[in-house]
Each structure stands twice: as C-alpha cells, then as structure tokens.
C-alpha cells in the first residue's frame, strides 16, 4: 500500500504550537503542515471528529495561522488598497472575510479582518491570515504600508471552538457578567473578555459552517484554557483532517487549493465579499481585472459537484462535459461524513457552470458521473442573533 499521506518523519524539524504537548498527550497523529507539527486526527478518527463537531462542539488548534495588528492613523483606508473587502464599513468589534490581491487581481491570500477600537488616535485592525503565507503576507504589508505599524502576534495561540454547543460551553468559562454577551454576539463580531485574568480576543466566526468562536489567547495561557474546554463533556479535540472535511461540506475555500495567485475573487465565487461601494469605487490593487470580471462575467467559475456513487474525486481530477470535452479540474474533493457520500468543488468554464448540469469527474482514468450543485453542501448554522 502506498499512500500520499505519510507520517512526518522529520517532525523534529517542525515548529510547534503552544498546544503541542497537549496534542501528544491526547494521542494525536501529528503531521507537518505549513512548517508546523499539527494534529491531523486524534484516536477517534476523522469521521467521528467531524460528526461530533456538527452535533456538539469541537476544539481546534489553529495557532499556526498568522495573527497581527495593523495600526495607524489611516490603517483602514490603507489596508483597503490591498483588499476588495469593505473595511471602512466595519464598526469596532465587527469583522469581515476578504482577500489580499496582487496586481493581476489574483488572490495572494485570504484573511479575516476585525476592526478594533481606535487607540491613541490610531485605527487598529486585527488580521488573521493563512499559516503557509503569513511570513510573506506580513512582510508585504509592512513594506507597502510604512505609515502603519504591523505588530505580528507571535506570542498568541489561536483556538477555534465550533459546533451547536460552542456558545453554551464558552459562556461557562467567562465571568458571569460576560456570559450573556458571549451568547448574544452575532456572527462576524468580536469582543475582548477575561478568563482568569487573561485577556481573550473572541470572535464569533469559524471555518466549519457551524456556529462557533475563534479565540486568540496568550501562548502561555493556551494549554490551560484548552484543557478547561476539553474537560467539558460536549467538547472533543478535532484535527486538521476533520477541519478540512467540515470546511469542504460548508463550501469554503482552502487557500493553495481552491484559491491561489492564479485565481481572482469573482471566479472563486467570492463576490459576496466585495461590497457595492468597493465594486463601484475600486481603489484596490487588481481592481481593473476584478471590475472586468464583474462586468463581463468570469471565464470560469468555482462550483460544487455531487458525484454519483461512493468513489471520491480528489484535487486534480479532470472535469469533462458529457461530450468528453475537458472543462476544468477539481480543486478539493473527498468524502463528506455528514452526507455519507463524496463531494467536490472545482473550476469549470462559465458556459458549463449551471447547477443541475451533468459532468464527468475523471478518477484514475475513469469517468465518474457527477452533477453540478449549489454550495454549501451542508447548510450553514451561523448565529445571526435573536
């Protein structure tokens, strides 16, 4: 048997997150990911972790991701020159998903931007970027925005608590005065709260399609906080394997796979993250190409596929129209534990992108019948208030 998934032999050469010892104690299988030793799964396995997150609550270590604060008198407008997202419309405590673009209007990275309260006349934005791109992203922003300070938060861990029980669990671990405000936080909002005198920066967001939170916490306090959450009957540790299957079911892009520096936000189906003001005004790098794609329609589109049968179609599989013509390729695909069947996403020529259309996914040389379907594959359960 030869598998593409090989255990990381040289785990010693990898960086560790503050939760490394906890992962080992929990029996995690560790693999190298973006230069970090990360848990791909715990002993119960990916399917069980995945289903647990959808049913109750899962705790993810995402400390490998990049966290930074961009601060400056004009930080909001300055960041807007690199992203198509409407950062100026963010009130303090609100956040947004957007993309760092290049001069071709392609995606250098995707990120979360949270507007923090101003401090000493400086606007402040909290950025969370992908692990594999963080060094380049932060160097790029620091070089291009010399009038802003970019404070990289290497001393903070990032945890995600995701699932229908996440709010109920988290409110038990903040002061009673703060408990109500945790429950009431709407999706894509952020707050600073105390946990045993430690400042937590909490956002109601995530990468699973479920309700949940991401929690930025000082590295030294992270293991204790994680253990306290794991002591809850509803919470189990979840590895990168289930993180991937959860986000795939939720139809969310994985940088380096579904989006990268050859793909623009419009063809990636991320138009929803570009507000009417930004579409009309531009003022960001790559605007000309993005505007062209908006006005004329992109030549290809990211779509979802439901293959017939049980064989998963994975990244790289060719996509053929029913006449045999190759019209694209799969960028993410695999087994969807919540559906008990495979799902995939990928890019096809815009002329072939209509939901309901039949296509063939080429798996090991054989055509596999599939249908184009809208995403997400599993409905989102974000908390919108009320």
């Amino acid at each position, binding site marked *: *048997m*030869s598998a593409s998934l090989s255990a990381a032999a040289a785990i010693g050469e990898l960086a560790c997150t503050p939760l490394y010892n906890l992962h080992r104690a929990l029996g995690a299988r560790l693999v190298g990911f973006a230069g970090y030793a990360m848990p791909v799964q715990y002993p119960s396995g*990916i399917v*069980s972790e995945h289903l647990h997150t959808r049913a109750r609550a899962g705790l993810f270590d995402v400390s490998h991701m990049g966290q930074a604060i961009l601060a400056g008198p004009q930080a909001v407008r300055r960041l807007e020159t690199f992203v198509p997202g409407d950062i100026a419309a963010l009130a303090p405590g609100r956040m947004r998903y957007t993309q760092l673009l290049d001069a071709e209007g392609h995606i250098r990275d995707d990120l979360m931007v949270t507007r923090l309260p101003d401090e000493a006349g400086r606007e402040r934005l909290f950025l969370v970027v992908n692990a594999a791109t963080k060094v380049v992203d932060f160097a790029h922003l620091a070089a291009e925005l010399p009038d802003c300070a970019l404070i990289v938060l290497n001393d903070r861990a990032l945890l995600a608590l995701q699932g229908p029980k996440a709010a109920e669990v988290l409110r038990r671990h903040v002061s009673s005065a703060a408990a109500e405000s945790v429950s009431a936080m709407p999706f894509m909002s952020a707050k600073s709260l105390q946990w045993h005198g430690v400042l937590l920066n909490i956002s109601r967001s995530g990468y699973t399609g479920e309700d949940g939170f991401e929690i930025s916490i000082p590295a030294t306090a992270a293991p204790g906080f994680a253990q306290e959450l794991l002591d809850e009957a509803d919470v189990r540790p979840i590895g990168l394997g289930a993180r991937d299957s959860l986000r795939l079911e939720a139809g969310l892009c994985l940088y380096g796979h579904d989006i990268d520096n050859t793909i623009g936000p419009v063809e990636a189906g991320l138009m929803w993250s570009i507000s009417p003001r930004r579409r009309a005004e531009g003022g960001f790098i790559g605007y000309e190409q993005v505007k062209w794609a908006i006005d004329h329609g992109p030549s290809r589109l990211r779509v979802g596929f439901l293959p017939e049968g*049980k*064989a998963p179609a994975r990244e790289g599989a060719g996509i053929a129209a029913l006449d045999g013509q190759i019209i694209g390729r799969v960028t993410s695909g*695999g087994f969807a*534990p919540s559906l008990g069947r495979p799902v995939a996403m990928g890019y096809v020529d815009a002329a072939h992108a209509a939901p309901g259309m039949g296509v063939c996914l080429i798996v090991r040389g054989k055509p596999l019948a599939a249908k184009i379907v809208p995403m997400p594959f599993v409905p989102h359960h974000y908390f919108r208030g009320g």
Partner: protein
Amino acid sequence: MTTRYTKSHEYVRVEGGMGVVGITDHAQTQLGDVVFVELPPIGQRLSKGDEAATVESVKAAAEVSAPVSGTVVEINGALADSPGLVNQDPTGRGWFLKIELSDAAEVDSLMDEDAYRAFLQAAS
C-alpha cells in the same frame, strides 16, 4: 494456513492454491476511516507489485499492490456498501480479493508474521 506480509502492508493468506489479499491492521490504522475501495475485475491477471486495488480514506487515496502474481477469482462485494469493514476487521471480513496463485514460491519471499512485526517495530 500461511499468512505473509509485504513491506507496503498488504497481506496474503494462502488457502489451498488461493491467496486472500487485504491490508494489515497497521495499514488501516494509518489510513483512518476507509470510505471507498475500488477492486479489480474478476479474471484480471496481476503480477506481483501491480496495482490491485485502491483504498480511499477520508484523507487520502492509497494503492494496494498485489503481494503475489496470479488471477483475480473473487472480490469482496461487501466492501461496496460497508468499506468500514476494512477498519473493523482488516484480516477477516475486510479482505479485498482472492487470487489464484500462479507461482506459489513467491509467497515464501514475503515476510512471515514475526518478520512483519519486527519490520513495523524498526519503522516506528
């Protein structure tokens, strides 16, 4: 009954002139939850080392090589609906295929259980 193992974690259990082929418990543990197994058509002739099957877990696809040469005479139809049998009972109900051995001597070139155990120990 003789069971032999490959360095790529397939087993072949010899029953008469027939070999029952599957993947070892170590292999299924490494793969994690198996969600799909693609098996060869009955009648396919395989040389030792040929790709005989593909096993897909949630995370990855892996090729299963023929541990010995021969002709596929039976495949485990139960895996179509219950691929999880590979995890639950890899050397029992989770078998992949039966092969009519074309060269029984090939079996002797593979590791016996003690040798395979030692091989796993050395690799870990």
